[in-house]
């Protein structure tokens, strides 16, 4: 038997290191038909804001080489809707529901956080300071270190349970941000959010996305994500949740070897809605084959001379 339980910090444990990324797994129930979502370590739900947002105009998606750009822009019905309509529907899943908290101002982040505090079955929030698809806030917090610190500090005051801060890859020094939010009391960090990218249609000479730029995800970004997880691992002591282009168990294991305690699957769910279960099983199979009895041995287990 392989022990697959991992400790995410702030008193939070996942029964296995495999979770699904915000914005890529709806609220979980979209995948009910395909898998038992209760098998997941956790589900990170779509970015949730203070009030309802319509998101960005269409088109919002562009396929790229081994990846995709999106400019969804935090479309969601707001935190109150989440509490009233969605929470009752998902709270009894046999996995952790973690809310991705988003906003344009520190006050909005805090407002959302406070409202979520009343929900017993939300063991953690993921503070999204890295969305590239909103005009104000979002990525600005994630690419300006003092802002990242400030919003983490304020949210930390409002949230007693596990606090995960999701970092933006659109920065010069990821370790600086990792350290900074650790200093402000983050229990763990997740990375990476999407890389800011762009697509043009040469035929029409127009940008493909209505917002011109969008967030790049998928296997294309994996090498960058892996590098950032490795850099962050050497900068902080808190656990790291790694993501960015993970498509299978091998990718997941690479992220763990680089320093991740757990991983998230994003874009991969679009291509194979059953991928998360395959990754759970694949990690266990890898451990058995390699005589690893505790999945935690993988974390930071890269051998380098």
């Amino acid at each position, binding site marked *: 038997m392989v022990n697959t339980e991992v400790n995410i910090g702030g008193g939070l444990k996942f029964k296995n290191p495999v979770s699904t990324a915000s914005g890529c797994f709806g609220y979980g129930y979209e995948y009910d038909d395909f898998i038992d979502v209760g098998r997941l370590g956790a589900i990170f739900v779509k970015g949730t804001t203070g009030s309802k947002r*319509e998101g960005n*105009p269409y088109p919002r998606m*562009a*396929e790229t080489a081994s990846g995709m750009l999106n400019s969804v822009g935090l479309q969601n019905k707001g935190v109150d809707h989440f509490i009233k309509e969605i929470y009752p529907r998902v709270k009894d899943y046999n996995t952790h529901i973690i809310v991705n908290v988003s906003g344009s101002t520190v006050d909005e982040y805090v407002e959302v956080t406070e409202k979520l505090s009343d929900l017993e079955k939300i063991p953690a929030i993921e503070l999204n300071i890295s969305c590239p698809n909103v005009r104000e806030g979002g990525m600005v917090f994630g690419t300006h270190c003092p802002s990242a610190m400030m919003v983490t500090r304020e949210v930390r005051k409002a949230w007693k349970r596990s606090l995960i801060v999701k970092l933006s890859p659109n920065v010069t020094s990821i370790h600086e941000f990792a350290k900074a939010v650790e200093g402000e009391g983050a229990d763990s960090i997740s990375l990476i959010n999407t890389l800011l990218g762009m697509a043009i249609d040469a035929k029409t000479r127009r940008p493909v996305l209505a917002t011109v730029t969008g967030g790049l995800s998928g296997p294309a970004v994996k090498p960058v994500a892996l590098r950032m997880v490795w850099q962050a691992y050497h900068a902080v002591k808190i656990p790291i949740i790694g993501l960015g282009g993970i498509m299978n168990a091998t990718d997941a294991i690479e992220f763990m070897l680089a320093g991740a305690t757990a991983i998230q699957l994003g874009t991969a769910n679009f291509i194979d809605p059953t991928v998360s279960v395959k990754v759970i099983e694949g990690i266990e199979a890898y451990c058995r084959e390699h005589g690893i009895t505790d999945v935690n041995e993988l974390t930071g287990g890269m051998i380098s001379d």
Partner: protein
Amino acid sequence: MTKYIRDFIIEDNIRLNTEYFILNIRSEEALPDMYPGQFVEIKVENTDGVFLRRPISIYGIDREKQTINLLIQKAGKGTTKLAQHKQGDKLNIIFPLGNSFTAPERKGKVLLVGGGVGVAPLPFLAEYLVDKGMEVEFLLGFRNSDLLVDLKNFEKYGKVNLSTDNGTAGEKGTVMDNSVLKEELLPFVKVYTCGPNIMMKAVAAFVEARGIECEASLENTMACGIGACLCCIQETIHGNVRVCIEGPVFNTKELIW
């Protein structure tokens, strides 16, 4: 409605003309319920430049044989690869996806307007409507006579009015120029349309103005096809909704387009 992910086996790949082909795919297990307007998402493997699944409408089903027909136009890399598939090849499919067309409240004649590959969902819809006691008529537009597709499969269900841009088959012009839309009193209780947005908008404006209900099946670019990513949005009077869940079929009155 429950969604499935399954490997289908290609039973036949029928080339209709330079652009269009029909894939007949078979499931090892019984097919679930499916409704006209619904679509499938196909994984196109090992094709440079193709990363996401491709949405394709259900063209027809054969419950007994456990097969689905897909009418596909070679539009780019993914569909061109699909055109090369041979009998016996496997295709991984997520299905059935999206909402579906709805029958009119009262019985009568209905018009199904398709443009190009937008004709794909119409035979399945016609079958459904005929079953419900409607009288079906088609109005189909193609660029030219070389691109007509599988007309017999439409004629089974009702009269086919044709338009081609260059007049090489049916009437010359777009579907909007077709005489079936010119008649003073349109005899239709409901009009259904699928095709290029510009065509659907014109059809919708025309029939709405005459107090006739209209449903359109919309184009969109999709990532997940199952409501999880919010990439496939359409602006409606209810805000931005997902074409893969709340659509692809919309009452045109609800659309802001």
